[in-house]
């Protein structure tokens, strides 16, 4: 049945090439109609499963206290006081314009905050900056107030007093990207003449996906150009390169169109195109290109041998149909294994990649042979008549493997063991601020906001307890003092701060009373007093409506993920020591979410790698009908995975949202190389080639396309010059993956099969 199907497919390509080509293009175009439905997603929170406890807490805080993700804008002139009428007026205009953006919920700045004053028994809640243009008296008064309230000053001004801080809190579920764009536009237009720095997780999550995608697209052009040049140098035929590329392009259209259709039909956000999906086109390009290269090089060898195009196509496809099916199946399964991971978007990633790989298989199997068939090949052309440079190189490696298999295997194993030493040093980094190397605009702005302003990372402590109880408020105050003692914490705020300030104000501005009052009745009186002259919404981000929940917000410098755990442990320890009978707390904020993402990425990487290797082993065992072949098939890719992570550990490349997925390239490509090698080996065994000659012949047949595939993808090394670290890592790891998987196959697998040749050949016979 399978043979009949194979023959039928080959005959379709040979007898009706135009029909096959038109049908393939039509179906791809149909899929391509889904492209407009692709949704670009910048919300990192969508990665986290809905039932995740940390996400639930995060959402409950959003629901009660509003968004905790913010955009920070600092503007001023270095070394020049920001408290000048002209600067304050500019800030006033900017803030009013930002407030008018529909997606903005609240703006915190000198132009929007309140002050609480006491004057001869008079409590007054008024605007910190009463109007756009301040009189000299008002300016003096403002300076004096900020001197008196350093906690407030640190939130709205730089340490040196030369920059003003504007913090924008968005509405929940608003269009953050559009809002960020508008704020940036306003900043550029209205704050001309000032140094302006943007920052905050919301800013980064809104901007980074766009920047990274733009950067990848720019560098991809170079990568593809290099790929084409290398293929041209080796295949020495423009039409052949064009045919390989057409398979790649149609596969990409098919996969991305599929994503769009799924979103359109199901509405699932798991199929949105997020920053981690940026690697999908590169991975599919690599895998789809691999299939094409194997078929084209096999065809050229057969054409050289048989001097007949139809015969060459028939023979090539007869030999490669099974391995190409198998490589596609195993690679698709490797990606499908991602559906078992806890990260939401990996499901869409895995399924879409599996679809793209299947589409590439279909195109390689019927579309590509039809194209080969249509071309009027000149059998005397150099591309068919002579071996390329790399074929000679591969012959040399083949000789080494055949002559010294033990040495080659031993050296390979030592390299893998050395690589394994780096495994323990792999670090996970999910803080997207660290995606930028020092010297880039974004990183400089983040560093400025960290060093000079409030910092842009946050931790929220949600407190369940009586917000009018002095005991609870004192614990909140103590926790804030603890947090502020940490060098990475720039400032904290909670309702306890407001209570202390009101207490002082009521007690005739006596600093000795800037403490939590000793009775509940006094706290309640202060709230009542405020309600008489302040807006009740003023406290909405600090305490809930019935005073049963409060929020402590700590603003921190950006810290590496590795420092987040100890920091959080310290906070939890301090809370435990405070006593939790009347003081139930839950931590949330970006720092907690990052830590959660770290665990999810680690688990996802572990699950996807383990499941895919096991599945590939089982599939190859079944297809090749032998346990030993199953084990040999996963040998090079397992070694490459170890080497990859070991290399990351040694080179200091962190495992992130993006790099975690690149292990899929290793598995996807590694298994392809191994399967081609094993298939060809079995083919020669079946043909009765003597055991002593098989390895050399297999090397000759598969070594070259493997090397060519690996080499052509070296073009992705161009990504290493990107300004964005994850894009650099994609480039670096692509190069590494290509080297490790190709060399692994041609050394470890080849030497292992050579050493086991007696057993493998005898058993097959």
């Amino acid at each position, binding site marked *: 049945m399978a043979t009949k199907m194979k023959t039928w497919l080959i005959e379709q390509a040979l007898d009706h090439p135009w029909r096959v080509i038109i049908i393939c293009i039509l179906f791809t175009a149909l899929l391509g109609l889904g492209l407009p439905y692709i949704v670009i997603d910048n919300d990192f929170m969508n990665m986290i499963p809905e039932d995740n406890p940390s996400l639930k807490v995060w959402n409950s805080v959003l629901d009660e206290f509003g968004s905790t993700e913010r955009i920070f804008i600092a503007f001023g002139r270095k070394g020049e006081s920001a408290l000048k009428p002209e600067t304050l007026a500019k800030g006033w205009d900017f803030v009013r314009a930002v407030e008018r953006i529909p997606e903005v919920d609240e703006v915190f700045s000198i132009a929007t905050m309140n002050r609480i004053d006491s004057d001869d028994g008079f409590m007054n809640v008024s605007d910190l900056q009463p109007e756009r243009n301040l009189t000299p008296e008002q300016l003096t008064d403002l300076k004096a107030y900020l001197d008196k309230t350093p906690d407030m000053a640190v939130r709205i001004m730089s340490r040196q007093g030369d920059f003003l801080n504007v913090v924008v809190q968005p509405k929940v579920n608003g269009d953050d990207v559009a809002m960020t764009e508008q704020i940036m536009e306003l900043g550029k237009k209205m704050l001309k003449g000032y140094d302006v720095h943007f920052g905050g997780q919301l800013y980064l999550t809104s901007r980074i996906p766009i920047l990274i995608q733009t950067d990848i697209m720019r560098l991809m052009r170079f990568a593809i150009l290099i790929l084409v040049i290398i293929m041209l140098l080796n295949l020495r035929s423009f039409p052949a390169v064009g045919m390989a590329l057409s398979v790649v392009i149609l596969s990409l259209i098919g996969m991305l169109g599929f994503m769009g259709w799924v979103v359109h039909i199901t509405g699932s956000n798991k199929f949105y195109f997020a920053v981690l999906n940026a690697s999908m086109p590169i991975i599919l390009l690599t895998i789809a290109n691999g299939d094409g290269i194997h078929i084209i090089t096999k065809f050229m060898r057969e054409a050289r041998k048989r001097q007949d195009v139809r015969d060459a196509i028939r023979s090539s496809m007869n030999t490669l149909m099974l391995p190409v099916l198998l490589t596609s199946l195993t690679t698709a399964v490797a990606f499908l294994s991602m559906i078992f991971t806890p990260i939401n978007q990996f499901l869409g990633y895995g399924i879409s990649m599996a679809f793209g790989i299947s589409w590439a298989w279909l195109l390689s199997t019927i579309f590509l042979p039809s194209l080969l068939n249509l071309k009027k090949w000149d059998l005397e052309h150099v591309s068919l008549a002579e071996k390329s440079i790399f074929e000679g190189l591969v012959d040399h490696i083949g000789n080494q493997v055949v002559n010294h298999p033990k040495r080659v295997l031993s050296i390979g194993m030592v390299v893998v063991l050395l690589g394994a030493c780096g495994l323990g040093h792999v670090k996970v980094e999910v803080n997207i601020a660290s995606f930028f190397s020092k010297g880039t605009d974004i990183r400089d702005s983040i560093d400025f906001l960290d060093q000079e302003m409030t910092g842009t990372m946050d931790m929220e402590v949600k407190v369940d307890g009586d917000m009018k109880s002095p005991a609870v408020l004192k614990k909140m105050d103590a926790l804030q003092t603890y947090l502020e003692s940490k060098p990475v914490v720039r400032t904290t705020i909670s309702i306890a701060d407001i209570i202390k300030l009101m207490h002082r104000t009521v007690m005739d501005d006596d600093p000795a009373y800037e403490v939590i009052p000793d009775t509940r009745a006094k706290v309640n*009186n202060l709230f009542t007093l405020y309600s008489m*002259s302040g807006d009740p919404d003023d406290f909405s981000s600090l305490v809930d*409506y019935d005073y049963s929940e409060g929020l402590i917000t700590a603003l921190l410098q950006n810290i590496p993920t590795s420092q987040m755990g100890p920091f959080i442990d310290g906070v939890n320890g301090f809370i435990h020591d405070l006593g939790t009978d009347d003081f139930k707390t839950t931590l949330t904020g970006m720092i907690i979410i990052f830590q959660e993402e770290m665990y999810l990425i680690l688990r996802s990487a572990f699950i996807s790698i383990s499941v895919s290797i096991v599945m590939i082993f089982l599939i190859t065992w079944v297809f090749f009908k032998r346990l030993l072949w199953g084990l040999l098939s996963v040998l090079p890719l397992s070694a490459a995975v170890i080497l990859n992570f070991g290399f990351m550990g040694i080179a200091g490349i962190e495992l992130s949202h993006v790099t975690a997925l690149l292990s899929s390239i290793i598995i996807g490509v590694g298994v392809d190389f191994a399967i081609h090698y094993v298939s060809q080996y079995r083919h020669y065994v079946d043909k009765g080639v003597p055991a002593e000659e098989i390895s050399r012949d297999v090397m000759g047949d598969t070594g070259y396309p493997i090397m060519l595939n690996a080499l052509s993808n070296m073009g992705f090394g161009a990504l290493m010059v990107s300004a964005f670290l994850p894009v650099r890592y994609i480039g670096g790891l692509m190069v590494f993956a290509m080297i490790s998987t190709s060399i692994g196959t041609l050394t470890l697998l080849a030497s292992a099969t050579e050493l086991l040749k007696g057993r493998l050949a005898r058993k097959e016979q």
Partner: protein
Amino acid sequence: MRRLIVLFFGLSIFSGIGWAQTGYDIAKKVDQRLEPADLTANLTMVLTNSKGKTRSNTIRSVSMKGGEKQMIWFLAPADDKGVAFLKIEHPGADDEMRLWLPAFKKVRRISSSKKGDSFMGSDMSYEDMTNRELDEYTYKLLREEPVNGVDCFVLEETPKPEIESTYSKHVTWISKQDYTVVKEESYDLSGVVKKVKTVEYVTRGKYILPVKMFVEDVQKNHSTLLKFEKLEVDTGVKADLFRERNLKRLPR
């Protein structure tokens, strides 16, 4: 024309409807409605936020001259019991407002400079609570239509340019029968509806008094329900009551 305070503390009944009345004429009739010399009531105020959470207070209010002088004692919840508030309006000057904080045993003065600030966390601002002067607004009769079965004039009131207001205009539904304000929409400075109020009345002798008022801030999705109980009018309250020392004494 008077608004909330007027609504709180007594409105006279005007009879007869002149079809040729202008907007100003109608507003004048509302302004001239009969008010009690003094009014005492227990008020229950229920605040509801956008998530449906509520807070409630019960206060005892005594006022004179349509609210020009007013004393409020907090009766409930227990946390607030004993807190007391005194307001005396001074024409052409800031209102005098004081709060007694029993836990601190101190009286604190409160600023009335921000007209748009909320009063006691409710959806009523100080501007809403203050008498609106007839000649500070221009009036336009928009149409006539019934509201909840009551035939009404629909009047548009726009503050004159020299008047500092947090609203751009009000649209008010005034009962044709007794010139009480049945409903009112208040628009913010950008011309968008900010608050919607509806009022229900009861007759006490020669006065028509509010018994229920619902104010919704439609922009914040926050509402305030006021219920008036134990209404007493013209009981002979003396001006002497509205002194700071009386804040400390809870009424029986």
